[in-house]
């Protein structure tokens, strides 16, 4: 995939998709690229699916939302259903392999549909709390929209104050990022 991308990231409230979007776009911005990120919002968000729309490009970015994403990442059953509308025939659709009961809801028209074991990897290999960083890795792996080092800098900027207290956390996060990238590359 090229250096620009339209990404729809969707999950449950607690899964941290908005902070993933935030870190990725900040990384791209720091990289001197055009980046645009807009969350969904509405009056009934409590418990609703949280969607982050991210665009990164070398050119000025058009509409903040888009019809069809280059990559969709869905982290819950409801997110799988909600994000179908952003799938076109060039879209890579990524979902977590642990999500149950969505077999019939997976998009039929996507370029690729990938199941990655992000929840499992985070839980078993790393720590459940870095689940969203694994996802961030997956996004970067799938799109190449930001450089890994930039991504690490952005994580550092966001979580640096925590890393100072517990340097092991840094390692854990960076590991998560890399594992995420690997997960998706294995599948691509």
């Amino acid at each position: 995939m090229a250096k620009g991308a339209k990404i729809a990231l969707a999950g449950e409230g607690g899964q941290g998709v908005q902070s993933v979007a935030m870190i990725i776009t900040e990384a791209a911005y720091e990289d001197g690229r055009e980046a645009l990120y807009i969350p969904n919002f509405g009056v009934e968000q409590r418990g609703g699916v949280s969607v982050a729309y991210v665009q990164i490009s070398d050119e000025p970015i058009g509409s903040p939302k888009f019809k069809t994403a280059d990559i969709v990442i869905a982290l819950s059953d409801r997110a799988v259903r909600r994000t179908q509308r952003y799938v076109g025939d060039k879209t890579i659709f990524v979902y977590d392999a642990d999500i149950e009961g969505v077999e019939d809801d997976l998009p039929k028209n996507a370029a690729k549909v990938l199941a990655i074991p992000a929840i499992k990897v985070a839980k078993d290999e790393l720590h459940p709390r870095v689940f969203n960083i694994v996802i961030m890795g997956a996004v970067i792996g799938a799109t190449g929209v930001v450089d890994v080092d930039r991504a690490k800098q952005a994580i550092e900027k966001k979580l640096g104050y925590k890393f100072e207290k517990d340097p092991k956390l840094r390692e854990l996060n960076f590991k998560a990022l890399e594992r995420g990238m690997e997960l998706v590359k294995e599948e691509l």
Partner: protein
Amino acid sequence: MSSPWKPVTYENGKGIFHLFTNLCKGCGLCVEKCPVNTIGWSKKLGVYGTPAVEPGHGEKDCIACGICELVCPDCAIKIEKVKDKKEA
């Protein structure tokens, strides 16, 4: 009309604790109010994918006082007193 919510049921002789996972949002209000501190987090997930609650986490057993039922803003708990036993 049968209820669309299937409870997870816990029984301890004094009472029956029904937890409707599709209603429980895992807010923890019941946890704080249980007089015997028996409510804790369950492995079962609630309606928002966060842990639901269950009794049996404290030193004492549920006494079926019904406070948790009363304070749950989502009507996710139903307590049945097993009073018939003694009375019978």
